[in-house]
Protein backbone atom coordinates (compact mmCIF):
# COMPACT_ATOMS: atom_id res chain seq x y z
CA UNK A 1 0.00 0.00 0.00
CA UNK A 2 0.94 3.60 0.02
CA UNK A 3 1.57 4.42 -3.62
CA UNK A 4 -1.79 6.03 -4.27
CA UNK A 5 -2.76 6.72 -7.89
CA UNK A 6 0.08 4.53 -9.22
CA UNK A 7 -0.81 0.90 -9.93
CA UNK A 8 -4.07 1.69 -11.71
CA UNK A 9 -4.65 2.78 -15.28
CA UNK A 10 -5.49 6.47 -15.59
CA UNK A 11 -8.73 5.91 -17.50
CA UNK A 12 -10.66 4.01 -14.87
CA UNK A 13 -12.13 6.43 -12.32
CA UNK A 14 -11.17 6.43 -8.65
CA UNK A 15 -13.67 4.67 -6.38
CA UNK A 16 -14.60 6.36 -3.11
CA UNK A 17 -17.11 5.13 -0.57
CA UNK A 18 -18.69 6.70 2.51
CA UNK A 19 -19.93 4.94 5.62
CA UNK A 20 -22.16 6.75 8.10
CA UNK A 21 -23.85 5.33 11.16
CA UNK A 22 -26.72 7.81 10.90
CA UNK A 23 -28.95 9.28 8.20
CA UNK A 24 -27.25 11.82 5.92
CA UNK A 25 -30.40 13.92 6.04
CA UNK A 26 -29.39 15.36 9.41
CA UNK A 27 -28.26 18.67 7.90
CA UNK A 28 -25.18 18.27 10.10
CA UNK A 29 -22.31 15.86 10.70
CA UNK A 30 -23.44 13.04 8.39
CA UNK A 31 -24.82 15.45 5.79
CA UNK A 32 -21.40 17.12 5.70
CA UNK A 33 -19.74 13.80 4.99
CA UNK A 34 -22.20 13.08 2.20
CA UNK A 35 -21.59 16.51 0.66
CA UNK A 36 -17.89 15.72 0.83
CA UNK A 37 -18.50 12.50 -1.10
CA UNK A 38 -20.53 14.32 -3.74
CA UNK A 39 -17.80 16.95 -4.03
CA UNK A 40 -15.25 14.23 -4.75
CA UNK A 41 -17.58 12.82 -7.39
CA UNK A 42 -17.96 16.18 -9.10
CA UNK A 43 -14.45 17.57 -8.66
CA UNK A 44 -12.29 14.57 -9.52
CA UNK A 45 -14.94 12.49 -11.23
CA UNK A 46 -14.67 9.65 -8.74
CA UNK A 47 -17.21 6.83 -8.69
CA UNK A 48 -18.88 7.06 -5.29
CA UNK A 49 -21.03 4.90 -3.07
CA UNK A 50 -22.61 5.35 0.36
CA UNK A 51 -23.94 2.94 2.96
CA UNK A 52 -25.60 3.66 6.27
CA UNK A 53 -24.38 1.10 8.81
CA UNK A 54 -25.73 0.78 12.32
CA UNK A 55 -23.69 -1.82 14.15
CA UNK A 56 -20.03 -2.86 14.42
CA UNK A 57 -21.08 -6.11 12.74
CA UNK A 58 -22.28 -4.13 9.74
CA UNK A 59 -19.06 -2.08 9.70
CA UNK A 60 -16.95 -5.17 8.97
CA UNK A 61 -19.44 -6.32 6.36
CA UNK A 62 -19.39 -2.99 4.52
CA UNK A 63 -15.59 -2.71 4.55
CA UNK A 64 -15.33 -6.23 3.11
CA UNK A 65 -17.84 -5.46 0.41
CA UNK A 66 -16.03 -2.29 -0.67
CA UNK A 67 -12.66 -3.99 -0.38
CA UNK A 68 -13.80 -6.85 -2.58
CA UNK A 69 -15.05 -4.47 -5.25
CA UNK A 70 -11.68 -2.70 -5.22
CA UNK A 71 -12.56 0.68 -3.79
CA UNK A 72 -9.64 3.09 -3.32
CA UNK A 73 -10.79 5.00 -0.26
CA UNK A 74 -13.55 4.29 2.23
CA UNK A 75 -14.40 7.34 4.30
CA UNK A 76 -15.65 5.88 7.58
CA UNK A 77 -17.35 8.92 9.02
CA UNK A 78 -17.03 8.45 12.77
CA UNK A 79 -14.60 7.18 15.41
CA UNK A 80 -16.85 4.13 15.97
CA UNK A 81 -15.40 2.58 12.80
CA UNK A 82 -11.80 2.56 13.95
CA UNK A 83 -11.45 -1.06 15.10
CA UNK A 84 -13.28 -2.45 12.09
CA UNK A 85 -11.12 -0.10 9.99
CA UNK A 86 -7.91 -1.65 11.31
CA UNK A 87 -9.27 -5.14 10.52
CA UNK A 88 -10.27 -3.98 7.04
CA UNK A 89 -6.90 -2.30 6.41
CA UNK A 90 -5.30 -5.59 7.31
CA UNK A 91 -7.53 -7.49 4.90
CA UNK A 92 -7.24 -5.08 1.95
CA UNK A 93 -3.75 -3.56 1.78
CA UNK A 94 -4.59 -1.62 -1.39
CA UNK A 95 -7.62 0.08 0.14
CA UNK A 96 -7.34 3.19 2.28
CA UNK A 97 -9.73 3.61 5.17
CA UNK A 98 -10.12 7.20 6.36
CA UNK A 99 -11.75 7.38 9.77
CA UNK A 100 -13.24 10.74 10.72
CA UNK A 101 -12.02 11.68 14.21
CA UNK A 102 -10.67 8.17 14.56
CA UNK A 103 -7.88 7.24 16.90
CA UNK A 104 -6.01 4.32 15.36
CA UNK A 105 -3.37 4.53 12.65
CA UNK A 106 -1.97 2.03 10.17
CA UNK A 107 -0.24 2.18 6.79
CA UNK A 108 -3.59 2.38 5.07
CA UNK A 109 -5.80 3.42 7.97
CA UNK A 110 -5.86 7.18 8.38
CA UNK A 111 -7.64 9.02 11.16
CA UNK A 112 -8.73 12.51 10.14
CA UNK A 113 -9.00 14.89 13.05
CA UNK A 114 -11.04 18.02 12.53
CA UNK A 115 -9.86 20.42 15.16
CA UNK A 116 -13.35 21.85 15.60
CA UNK A 117 -12.20 22.69 19.11
CA UNK A 118 -10.52 25.79 17.69
CA UNK A 119 -13.86 27.13 16.43
CA UNK A 120 -15.61 25.96 19.57
CA UNK A 121 -13.07 27.89 21.66
CA UNK A 122 -13.90 31.09 19.77
CA UNK A 123 -17.60 30.31 20.22
CA UNK A 124 -16.91 30.14 23.93
CA UNK A 125 -15.36 33.61 23.81
CA UNK A 126 -18.42 34.91 21.96
CA UNK A 127 -20.75 33.29 24.50
CA UNK A 128 -18.86 34.76 27.45
CA UNK A 129 -18.96 38.14 25.79
CA UNK A 130 -22.70 38.02 25.20
CA UNK A 131 -24.09 36.42 28.35
CA UNK A 132 -25.90 38.73 30.74
CA UNK A 133 -26.81 36.17 33.33
CA UNK A 134 -23.31 34.77 33.65
CA UNK A 135 -24.67 31.33 32.84
CA UNK A 136 -24.28 29.52 29.50
CA UNK A 137 -25.24 26.02 28.42
CA UNK A 138 -24.15 23.12 26.25
CA UNK A 139 -26.59 20.50 24.91
CA UNK A 140 -24.96 17.32 23.65
CA UNK A 141 -26.26 14.23 21.89
CA UNK A 142 -24.12 11.33 23.06
CA UNK A 143 -20.90 11.85 25.01
CA UNK A 144 -18.33 10.88 22.37
CA UNK A 145 -14.77 12.25 22.23
CA UNK A 146 -15.34 14.75 19.37
CA UNK A 147 -18.40 16.16 21.11
CA UNK A 148 -16.67 16.27 24.50
CA UNK A 149 -13.69 17.91 22.82
CA UNK A 150 -15.76 20.78 21.50
CA UNK A 151 -17.40 21.23 24.90
CA UNK A 152 -14.08 21.34 26.79
CA UNK A 153 -12.77 23.89 24.30
CA UNK A 154 -15.97 25.92 24.60
CA UNK A 155 -15.56 26.02 28.39
CA UNK A 156 -11.94 27.10 28.00
CA UNK A 157 -13.01 29.85 25.62
CA UNK A 158 -15.59 31.08 28.09
CA UNK A 159 -13.13 30.96 30.96
CA UNK A 160 -10.54 32.89 28.93
CA UNK A 161 -12.91 35.88 28.97
CA UNK A 162 -14.95 35.50 32.14
CA UNK A 163 -13.76 32.82 34.60
CA UNK A 164 -16.85 33.62 36.68
CA UNK A 165 -19.31 32.36 34.08
CA UNK A 166 -20.81 28.93 34.85
CA UNK A 167 -21.33 26.43 32.01
CA UNK A 168 -24.14 23.86 32.09
CA UNK A 169 -23.88 20.51 30.28
CA UNK A 170 -26.72 18.19 29.23
CA UNK A 171 -26.70 15.02 27.13
CA UNK A 172 -29.93 13.72 25.61
CA UNK A 173 -28.60 10.30 24.64
CA UNK A 174 -29.66 10.61 21.01
CA UNK A 175 -28.74 12.43 17.79
CA UNK A 176 -32.25 12.77 16.35
CA UNK A 177 -34.70 13.24 19.24
CA UNK A 178 -35.60 16.86 18.50
CA UNK A 179 -38.12 17.06 21.33
CA UNK A 180 -35.60 15.88 23.91
CA UNK A 181 -33.04 18.42 22.67
CA UNK A 182 -35.61 21.17 22.94
CA UNK A 183 -36.62 20.25 26.47
CA UNK A 184 -32.97 20.01 27.52
CA UNK A 185 -32.43 23.51 26.12
CA UNK A 186 -35.59 24.84 27.78
CA UNK A 187 -34.43 23.41 31.11
CA UNK A 188 -31.09 25.22 30.77
CA UNK A 189 -32.78 28.48 29.76
CA UNK A 190 -35.10 28.24 32.77
CA UNK A 191 -31.97 27.63 34.84
CA UNK A 192 -30.89 31.12 33.71
CA UNK A 193 -28.56 30.29 30.86
CA UNK A 194 -28.85 32.85 28.03
CA UNK A 195 -26.34 31.52 25.50
CA UNK A 196 -26.59 27.91 24.38
CA UNK A 197 -24.22 25.89 22.24
CA UNK A 198 -25.10 22.42 21.01
CA UNK A 199 -23.50 19.32 19.61
CA UNK A 200 -26.58 17.25 18.88
CA UNK A 201 -26.66 16.99 15.12
CA UNK A 202 -30.20 16.70 13.68
CA UNK A 203 -31.75 17.11 17.12
CA UNK A 204 -30.17 20.57 17.32
CA UNK A 205 -33.24 22.06 15.63
CA UNK A 206 -34.92 21.60 19.00
CA UNK A 207 -32.30 23.80 20.65
CA UNK A 208 -32.82 26.54 18.06
CA UNK A 209 -36.60 26.32 18.54
CA UNK A 210 -36.24 26.59 22.32
CA UNK A 211 -34.16 29.75 22.05
CA UNK A 212 -36.46 31.17 19.39
CA UNK A 213 -39.47 30.68 21.71
CA UNK A 214 -37.59 32.11 24.69
CA UNK A 215 -36.79 35.33 22.78
CA UNK A 216 -40.34 35.69 21.47
CA UNK A 217 -41.39 35.29 25.11
CA UNK A 218 -39.31 38.41 25.78
CA UNK A 219 -36.10 37.30 27.45
CA UNK A 220 -32.97 37.68 25.32
CA UNK A 221 -31.13 34.46 24.54
CA UNK A 222 -28.66 33.25 21.94
CA UNK A 223 -27.83 29.93 20.32
CA UNK A 224 -24.56 28.95 18.65
CA UNK A 225 -24.51 26.42 15.81
CA UNK A 226 -22.03 23.57 15.45
CA UNK A 227 -20.67 21.07 12.91
CA UNK A 228 -21.55 23.38 10.06
CA UNK A 229 -22.72 26.88 9.29
CA UNK A 230 -26.17 26.99 10.93
CA UNK A 231 -26.48 30.75 10.99
CA UNK A 232 -29.64 30.71 8.91
CA UNK A 233 -31.48 27.97 10.84
CA UNK A 234 -32.86 30.71 13.11
CA UNK A 235 -31.13 33.91 11.93
CA UNK A 236 -32.73 36.19 14.50
CA UNK A 237 -31.39 34.29 17.52
CA UNK A 238 -28.26 32.60 16.18
CA UNK A 239 -25.10 34.24 17.44
CA UNK A 240 -22.83 32.33 15.11
CA UNK A 241 -21.64 28.86 14.16
CA UNK A 242 -18.60 26.75 14.90
CA UNK A 243 -18.40 25.86 11.23
CA UNK A 244 -16.95 22.60 9.98
CA UNK A 245 -16.41 22.39 6.20
CA UNK A 246 -16.21 18.66 5.75
CA UNK A 247 -16.21 18.70 1.92
CA UNK A 248 -13.00 20.71 1.94
CA UNK A 249 -11.45 18.20 4.33
CA UNK A 250 -12.52 15.25 2.18
CA UNK A 251 -11.06 16.92 -0.89
CA UNK A 252 -7.81 17.51 0.98
CA UNK A 253 -7.59 13.80 1.81
CA UNK A 254 -8.32 12.81 -1.77
CA UNK A 255 -5.57 15.10 -3.01
CA UNK A 256 -3.12 13.60 -0.51
CA UNK A 257 -4.09 10.19 -1.91
CA UNK A 258 -3.60 11.33 -5.50
CA UNK A 259 -0.20 12.67 -4.51
CA UNK A 260 0.52 9.28 -2.95
CA UNK A 261 1.14 10.90 0.42
CA UNK A 262 -1.81 9.35 2.22
CA UNK A 263 -1.30 6.76 4.94
CA UNK A 264 0.80 5.87 7.89
CA UNK A 265 0.01 9.02 9.86
CA UNK A 266 -3.05 10.93 10.98
CA UNK A 267 -4.36 13.92 9.07
CA UNK A 268 -5.14 17.05 11.04
CA UNK A 269 -7.51 19.47 9.43
CA UNK A 270 -8.37 22.68 11.16
CA UNK A 271 -8.43 26.41 11.07
CA UNK A 272 -5.10 26.72 9.35
CA UNK A 273 -6.53 24.79 6.40
CA UNK A 274 -9.80 26.66 6.47
CA UNK A 275 -11.91 23.57 7.24
CA UNK A 276 -12.85 24.95 10.66
CA UNK A 277 -13.78 28.43 11.81
CA UNK A 278 -16.14 30.39 14.01
CA UNK A 279 -18.52 32.34 11.77
CA UNK A 280 -20.45 35.16 13.48
CA UNK A 281 -23.99 35.42 12.15
CA UNK A 282 -23.91 38.37 9.72
CA UNK A 283 -27.60 39.02 10.45
CA UNK A 284 -26.78 39.95 14.04
CA UNK A 285 -23.26 41.24 13.66
CA UNK A 286 -24.38 44.65 14.90
CA UNK A 287 -25.41 43.09 18.22
CA UNK A 288 -21.79 42.09 18.97
CA UNK A 289 -19.91 44.61 21.08
CA UNK A 290 -17.08 45.75 18.79
CA UNK A 291 -14.45 44.81 21.37
CA UNK A 292 -15.85 41.27 21.47
CA UNK A 293 -15.41 40.83 17.70
CA UNK A 294 -11.89 42.20 18.09
CA UNK A 295 -11.23 39.74 20.87
CA UNK A 296 -12.44 36.81 18.73
CA UNK A 297 -10.20 37.84 15.82
CA UNK A 298 -7.30 38.25 18.25
CA UNK A 299 -7.82 34.70 19.54
CA UNK A 300 -8.11 33.36 15.99
CA UNK A 301 -4.77 34.93 15.13
CA UNK A 302 -3.00 33.47 18.14
CA UNK A 303 -4.42 30.04 17.38
CA UNK A 304 -3.26 30.23 13.77
CA UNK A 305 0.12 31.46 14.86
CA UNK A 306 0.33 28.36 16.99
CA UNK A 307 0.91 30.46 20.07
CA UNK A 308 -2.33 29.22 21.61
CA UNK A 309 -3.01 25.51 21.92
CA UNK A 310 -6.72 24.99 22.28
CA UNK A 311 -7.38 22.22 24.81
CA UNK A 312 -8.58 19.04 23.10
CA UNK A 313 -9.36 15.49 24.11
CA UNK A 314 -6.29 13.75 22.62
CA UNK A 315 -7.55 10.59 20.98
CA UNK A 316 -5.15 9.89 18.14
CA UNK A 317 -2.45 7.40 19.06
CA UNK A 318 0.97 8.99 18.99
CA UNK A 319 3.08 6.63 16.94
CA UNK A 320 2.26 4.15 14.21
CA UNK A 321 1.57 0.49 14.84
CA UNK A 322 1.41 0.49 18.63
CA UNK A 323 -1.85 -1.41 18.42
CA UNK A 324 -2.10 -5.00 17.30
CA UNK A 325 -2.91 -6.06 13.77
CA UNK A 326 -1.37 -3.09 11.97
CA UNK A 327 -0.35 -4.68 8.69
CA UNK A 328 2.04 -3.05 6.24
Amino acid at each position, binding site marked *: AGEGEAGREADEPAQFALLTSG*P*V*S*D*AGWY*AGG*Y*EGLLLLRDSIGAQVSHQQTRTPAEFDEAFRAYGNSGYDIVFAHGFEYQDAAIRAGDLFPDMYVVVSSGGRVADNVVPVTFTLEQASYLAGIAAAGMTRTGLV*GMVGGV*AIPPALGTFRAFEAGVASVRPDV*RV*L*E*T*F*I*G*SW*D*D*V*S*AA*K*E*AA*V*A*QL*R*QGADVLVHNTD*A*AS*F*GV*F*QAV*REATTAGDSAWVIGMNGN*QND*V*APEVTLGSADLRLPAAFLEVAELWQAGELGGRPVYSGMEKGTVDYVPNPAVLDRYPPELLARIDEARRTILSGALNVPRVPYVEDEIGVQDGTGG
Partner: protein
Amino acid sequence: MSELLAPFFEASVRLGVPLALAALGETITERSGVINIGLEGSIIAGAFAGALGALAWGAPGGAIAGLMAGGVAAAVFAFFALGLGADQIITGTAVTIGGLGLTAAAYETRFGPTGTALSLPTLDPLPVPLLAELPLLGRALFAQPVTAYAAYLLAPVLWWYLQRTAWGLELRAVGEEPCAAEAAGVAVVRTRVFATLFGGAMGGLAGVHLSLAHTATFAEGMSAGRGFIALAVVVLGRWNPLGVVAAALLFGAASALQFSLQALGLNLPYQLFLALPYLLALLALAGWVGRTRAPAALGQPWPAGR
Protein backbone atom coordinates in the same frame (compact mmCIF):
# COMPACT_ATOMS: atom_id res chain seq x y z
CA MET B 1 -39.57 26.84 44.81
CA SER B 2 -42.47 27.49 42.45
CA GLU B 3 -40.21 29.35 39.97
CA LEU B 4 -38.33 26.04 39.85
CA LEU B 5 -41.35 23.75 39.86
CA ALA B 6 -43.63 25.58 37.43
CA PRO B 7 -41.29 25.12 34.43
CA PHE B 8 -40.82 21.50 35.44
CA PHE B 9 -44.55 20.88 35.35
CA GLU B 10 -44.83 22.65 32.00
CA ALA B 11 -42.11 20.43 30.55
CA SER B 12 -43.83 17.37 32.03
CA VAL B 13 -47.04 18.17 30.16
CA ARG B 14 -45.23 19.03 26.91
CA LEU B 15 -43.43 15.68 27.02
CA GLY B 16 -46.44 13.76 28.30
CA VAL B 17 -49.00 14.90 25.74
CA PRO B 18 -47.69 12.96 22.70
CA LEU B 19 -47.49 9.82 24.82
CA ALA B 20 -50.99 10.46 26.12
CA LEU B 21 -52.46 10.90 22.63
CA ALA B 22 -50.78 7.80 21.20
CA ALA B 23 -51.55 5.72 24.29
CA LEU B 24 -55.21 6.79 24.35
CA GLY B 25 -55.57 5.57 20.78
CA GLU B 26 -53.76 2.33 21.50
CA THR B 27 -55.96 1.82 24.55
CA ILE B 28 -59.05 1.71 22.35
CA THR B 29 -57.24 -0.54 19.85
CA GLU B 30 -56.13 -2.97 22.54
CA ARG B 31 -59.48 -2.98 24.26
CA SER B 32 -60.82 -4.42 21.00
CA GLY B 33 -58.26 -7.23 21.20
CA VAL B 34 -55.80 -5.82 18.67
CA ILE B 35 -52.22 -4.94 19.59
CA ASN B 36 -50.84 -2.52 17.03
CA ILE B 37 -47.08 -2.12 17.50
CA GLY B 38 -47.15 -0.24 14.20
CA LEU B 39 -48.05 2.76 16.36
CA GLU B 40 -44.54 4.17 15.94
CA GLY B 41 -45.20 4.14 12.18
CA SER B 42 -48.41 6.10 12.68
CA ILE B 43 -46.64 8.67 14.86
CA ILE B 44 -43.82 9.40 12.42
CA ALA B 45 -46.30 9.45 9.54
CA GLY B 46 -48.38 11.97 11.46
CA ALA B 47 -45.32 14.09 12.23
CA PHE B 48 -44.24 14.20 8.59
CA ALA B 49 -47.66 14.63 7.00
CA GLY B 50 -48.28 17.30 9.63
CA ALA B 51 -45.14 19.10 8.50
CA LEU B 52 -46.04 18.89 4.80
CA GLY B 53 -49.63 19.90 5.49
CA ALA B 54 -48.53 22.83 7.64
CA LEU B 55 -46.26 24.09 4.85
CA ALA B 56 -49.11 23.80 2.37
CA TRP B 57 -52.15 24.90 4.36
CA GLY B 58 -50.85 26.17 7.67
CA ALA B 59 -50.77 24.47 11.04
CA PRO B 60 -54.45 23.45 11.30
CA GLY B 61 -54.34 21.88 7.85
CA GLY B 62 -51.19 20.11 8.94
CA ALA B 63 -52.93 18.72 11.99
CA ILE B 64 -55.69 17.25 9.83
CA ALA B 65 -53.14 15.81 7.41
CA GLY B 66 -51.18 14.23 10.26
CA LEU B 67 -54.30 12.74 11.75
CA MET B 68 -55.19 11.14 8.44
CA ALA B 69 -51.66 9.91 7.76
CA GLY B 70 -51.66 8.11 11.09
CA GLY B 71 -54.95 6.52 10.13
CA VAL B 72 -53.57 5.42 6.76
CA ALA B 73 -50.62 3.67 8.41
CA ALA B 74 -53.08 1.90 10.69
CA ALA B 75 -55.22 1.00 7.66
CA VAL B 76 -52.29 -0.93 6.16
CA PHE B 77 -51.95 -2.76 9.47
CA ALA B 78 -55.68 -3.44 9.56
CA PHE B 79 -55.71 -4.81 6.02
CA PHE B 80 -53.05 -7.42 6.77
CA ALA B 81 -53.68 -8.19 10.44
CA LEU B 82 -57.49 -8.04 10.44
CA GLY B 83 -58.39 -8.52 6.79
CA LEU B 84 -55.94 -11.32 6.06
CA GLY B 85 -55.59 -12.43 9.67
CA ALA B 86 -51.80 -12.15 9.48
CA ASP B 87 -49.84 -12.08 12.73
CA GLN B 88 -50.35 -8.74 14.45
CA ILE B 89 -46.84 -8.38 15.85
CA ILE B 90 -45.10 -9.08 12.54
CA THR B 91 -47.47 -6.78 10.67
CA GLY B 92 -46.91 -4.07 13.26
CA THR B 93 -43.16 -4.44 12.88
CA ALA B 94 -43.46 -4.05 9.12
CA VAL B 95 -45.65 -0.96 9.46
CA THR B 96 -43.18 0.63 11.85
CA ILE B 97 -40.19 -0.06 9.59
CA GLY B 98 -42.16 1.09 6.57
CA GLY B 99 -43.44 4.22 8.27
CA LEU B 100 -39.98 5.29 9.40
CA GLY B 101 -38.55 4.45 5.97
CA LEU B 102 -41.24 6.04 3.84
CA THR B 103 -41.28 9.32 5.77
CA ALA B 104 -37.50 9.51 5.62
CA ALA B 105 -37.47 8.71 1.90
CA ALA B 106 -40.16 11.28 1.18
CA TYR B 107 -38.36 13.85 3.34
CA GLU B 108 -35.11 13.34 1.46
CA THR B 109 -36.89 13.54 -1.88
CA ARG B 110 -38.74 16.70 -0.93
CA PHE B 111 -36.05 18.54 1.05
CA GLY B 112 -32.83 17.19 -0.43
CA PRO B 113 -30.77 14.15 0.53
CA THR B 114 -28.87 16.09 3.20
CA GLY B 115 -32.02 17.53 4.70
CA THR B 116 -32.85 21.10 5.67
CA ALA B 117 -33.66 22.78 8.96
CA LEU B 118 -37.39 23.26 8.46
CA SER B 119 -39.12 25.83 10.57
CA LEU B 120 -42.81 25.12 10.34
CA PRO B 121 -45.92 27.10 11.19
CA THR B 122 -46.72 26.01 14.72
CA LEU B 123 -49.76 25.10 16.80
CA ASP B 124 -49.11 27.79 19.40
CA PRO B 125 -50.09 27.47 23.06
CA LEU B 126 -53.60 28.81 23.72
CA PRO B 127 -53.69 30.01 27.33
CA VAL B 128 -57.10 29.47 28.90
CA PRO B 129 -58.06 32.95 30.18
CA LEU B 130 -58.32 32.52 33.95
CA LEU B 131 -57.04 29.02 34.58
CA ALA B 132 -53.66 29.78 33.02
CA GLU B 133 -53.04 32.36 35.78
CA LEU B 134 -53.32 29.72 38.50
CA PRO B 135 -50.12 29.36 40.52
CA LEU B 136 -47.76 26.46 39.91
CA LEU B 137 -49.89 24.25 37.62
CA GLY B 138 -51.72 27.05 35.82
CA ARG B 139 -49.46 27.47 32.83
CA ALA B 140 -48.44 23.81 32.86
CA LEU B 141 -51.99 22.63 32.25
CA PHE B 142 -53.77 25.56 30.66
CA ALA B 143 -51.18 27.33 28.51
CA GLN B 144 -50.70 24.44 26.12
CA PRO B 145 -51.26 23.82 22.41
CA VAL B 146 -54.59 22.43 21.25
CA THR B 147 -53.15 18.90 21.15
CA ALA B 148 -52.83 18.93 24.94
CA TYR B 149 -56.45 19.97 25.36
CA ALA B 150 -57.42 17.20 22.95
CA ALA B 151 -55.77 14.72 25.31
CA TYR B 152 -57.50 16.21 28.39
CA LEU B 153 -60.89 16.05 26.69
CA LEU B 154 -60.54 12.66 25.07
CA ALA B 155 -59.64 10.88 28.30
CA PRO B 156 -63.06 11.26 29.96
CA VAL B 157 -64.87 11.01 26.62
CA LEU B 158 -63.21 7.72 25.79
CA TRP B 159 -63.82 6.43 29.31
CA TRP B 160 -67.48 7.28 28.90
CA TYR B 161 -67.49 5.65 25.48
CA LEU B 162 -66.05 2.40 26.84
CA GLN B 163 -68.12 2.18 29.99
CA ARG B 164 -71.37 3.89 29.16
CA THR B 165 -72.21 3.26 25.51
CA ALA B 166 -73.42 0.18 23.67
CA TRP B 167 -70.49 0.57 21.26
CA GLY B 168 -68.05 0.64 24.13
CA LEU B 169 -69.58 -2.50 25.60
CA GLU B 170 -69.38 -4.25 22.24
CA LEU B 171 -65.76 -3.14 21.84
CA ARG B 172 -64.83 -4.52 25.26
CA ALA B 173 -66.66 -7.77 24.55
CA VAL B 174 -64.82 -8.15 21.24
CA GLY B 175 -61.52 -7.69 23.04
CA GLU B 176 -62.35 -10.17 25.76
CA GLU B 177 -64.32 -12.94 24.07
CA PRO B 178 -64.85 -12.44 20.33
CA CYS B 179 -66.83 -15.68 20.04
CA ALA B 180 -69.28 -14.47 22.66
CA ALA B 181 -69.49 -11.07 21.02
CA GLU B 182 -70.19 -12.64 17.64
CA ALA B 183 -72.85 -14.90 19.11
CA ALA B 184 -74.48 -11.79 20.57
CA GLY B 185 -74.60 -10.31 17.07
CA VAL B 186 -71.59 -7.99 17.23
CA ALA B 187 -69.55 -7.55 14.02
CA VAL B 188 -66.15 -8.49 15.43
CA VAL B 189 -63.88 -7.57 12.52
CA ARG B 190 -65.64 -4.28 11.80
CA THR B 191 -65.33 -3.27 15.45
CA ARG B 192 -61.63 -4.11 15.48
CA VAL B 193 -60.97 -2.25 12.24
CA PHE B 194 -62.63 0.85 13.65
CA ALA B 195 -60.63 0.64 16.87
CA THR B 196 -57.39 0.19 14.92
CA LEU B 197 -58.02 3.14 12.60
CA PHE B 198 -58.90 5.33 15.57
CA GLY B 199 -55.72 4.29 17.34
CA GLY B 200 -53.68 5.10 14.23
CA ALA B 201 -55.27 8.53 13.86
CA MET B 202 -54.44 9.28 17.50
CA GLY B 203 -50.88 8.18 16.84
CA GLY B 204 -50.85 10.61 13.92
CA LEU B 205 -52.04 13.38 16.24
CA ALA B 206 -49.19 12.54 18.61
CA GLY B 207 -46.84 12.98 15.67
CA VAL B 208 -48.47 16.30 14.86
CA HIS B 209 -47.76 17.42 18.42
CA LEU B 210 -44.09 16.53 18.00
CA SER B 211 -43.55 18.31 14.70
CA LEU B 212 -46.02 21.22 14.87
CA ALA B 213 -46.76 21.90 18.52
CA HIS B 214 -43.41 21.06 20.10
CA THR B 215 -40.40 21.37 17.80
CA ALA B 216 -41.74 23.26 14.77
CA THR B 217 -39.58 21.08 12.55
CA PHE B 218 -39.20 17.56 11.22
CA ALA B 219 -36.23 15.23 11.42
CA GLU B 220 -35.86 11.65 10.28
CA GLY B 221 -36.92 9.26 13.04
CA MET B 222 -37.91 12.09 15.37
CA SER B 223 -40.59 9.84 16.92
CA ALA B 224 -37.59 8.27 18.69
CA GLY B 225 -39.41 5.16 19.94
CA ARG B 226 -42.33 7.00 21.52
CA GLY B 227 -44.69 4.48 19.94
CA PHE B 228 -43.20 1.74 22.07
CA ILE B 229 -43.22 3.85 25.22
CA ALA B 230 -46.91 4.47 24.50
CA LEU B 231 -47.48 0.70 24.56
CA ALA B 232 -45.98 0.66 28.04
CA VAL B 233 -48.07 3.65 29.06
CA VAL B 234 -51.24 1.80 28.09
CA VAL B 235 -50.40 -0.96 30.55
CA LEU B 236 -49.29 1.51 33.21
CA GLY B 237 -52.70 3.14 32.80
CA ARG B 238 -54.42 -0.24 33.12
CA TRP B 239 -56.17 0.08 29.74
CA ASN B 240 -58.29 2.82 31.28
CA PRO B 241 -58.27 6.17 29.41
CA LEU B 242 -58.07 8.19 32.61
CA GLY B 243 -55.29 6.06 34.03
CA VAL B 244 -53.49 6.16 30.69
CA VAL B 245 -53.38 9.96 30.61
CA ALA B 246 -52.14 9.98 34.20
CA ALA B 247 -49.45 7.45 33.33
CA ALA B 248 -48.43 9.46 30.27
CA LEU B 249 -48.05 12.62 32.33
CA LEU B 250 -46.07 10.65 34.92
CA PHE B 251 -43.76 9.46 32.17
CA GLY B 252 -43.51 13.02 30.87
CA ALA B 253 -42.63 14.22 34.35
CA ALA B 254 -39.91 11.61 34.67
CA SER B 255 -38.36 12.72 31.37
CA ALA B 256 -38.65 16.38 32.33
CA LEU B 257 -37.04 15.63 35.69
CA GLN B 258 -34.11 14.03 33.86
CA PHE B 259 -33.40 17.28 31.98
CA SER B 260 -33.91 19.49 35.01
CA LEU B 261 -31.53 17.36 37.05
CA GLN B 262 -28.87 17.47 34.33
CA ALA B 263 -29.31 21.23 34.03
CA LEU B 264 -28.81 21.50 37.79
CA GLY B 265 -25.35 20.14 37.09
CA LEU B 266 -25.60 17.10 39.38
CA ASN B 267 -22.38 15.19 38.88
CA LEU B 268 -23.80 11.77 38.07
CA PRO B 269 -23.50 9.67 34.87
CA TYR B 270 -26.12 11.06 32.51
CA GLN B 271 -27.20 7.54 31.55
CA LEU B 272 -28.72 7.30 35.01
CA PHE B 273 -30.97 10.26 34.26
CA LEU B 274 -31.88 8.85 30.85
CA ALA B 275 -32.90 5.56 32.47
CA LEU B 276 -34.93 7.36 35.12
CA PRO B 277 -38.35 7.25 33.38
CA TYR B 278 -38.02 3.53 32.77
CA LEU B 279 -36.92 2.79 36.31
CA LEU B 280 -39.88 4.78 37.60
CA ALA B 281 -42.21 2.84 35.31
CA LEU B 282 -40.76 -0.38 36.70
CA LEU B 283 -41.36 0.81 40.24
CA ALA B 284 -44.91 1.82 39.39
CA LEU B 285 -45.59 -1.63 37.94
CA ALA B 286 -44.07 -3.45 40.88
CA GLY B 287 -45.83 -1.05 43.21
CA TRP B 288 -49.47 -0.78 42.32
CA VAL B 289 -50.44 -1.20 38.66
CA GLY B 290 -48.84 -4.60 38.20
CA ARG B 291 -51.67 -7.01 38.74
CA THR B 292 -54.07 -5.86 36.05
CA ARG B 293 -54.90 -8.25 33.24
CA ALA B 294 -54.77 -7.41 29.56
CA PRO B 295 -57.87 -7.89 27.40
CA ALA B 296 -58.23 -11.66 27.15
CA ALA B 297 -58.21 -11.83 23.34
CA LEU B 298 -55.36 -9.33 22.88
CA GLY B 299 -53.31 -10.18 19.81
CA GLN B 300 -55.35 -13.21 18.84
CA PRO B 301 -56.50 -13.51 15.23
CA TRP B 302 -60.18 -13.70 14.39
CA PRO B 303 -61.76 -15.99 13.42
CA ALA B 304 -59.84 -18.18 15.84
CA GLY B 305 -57.44 -20.81 14.55
CA ARG B 306 -57.15 -19.04 11.22
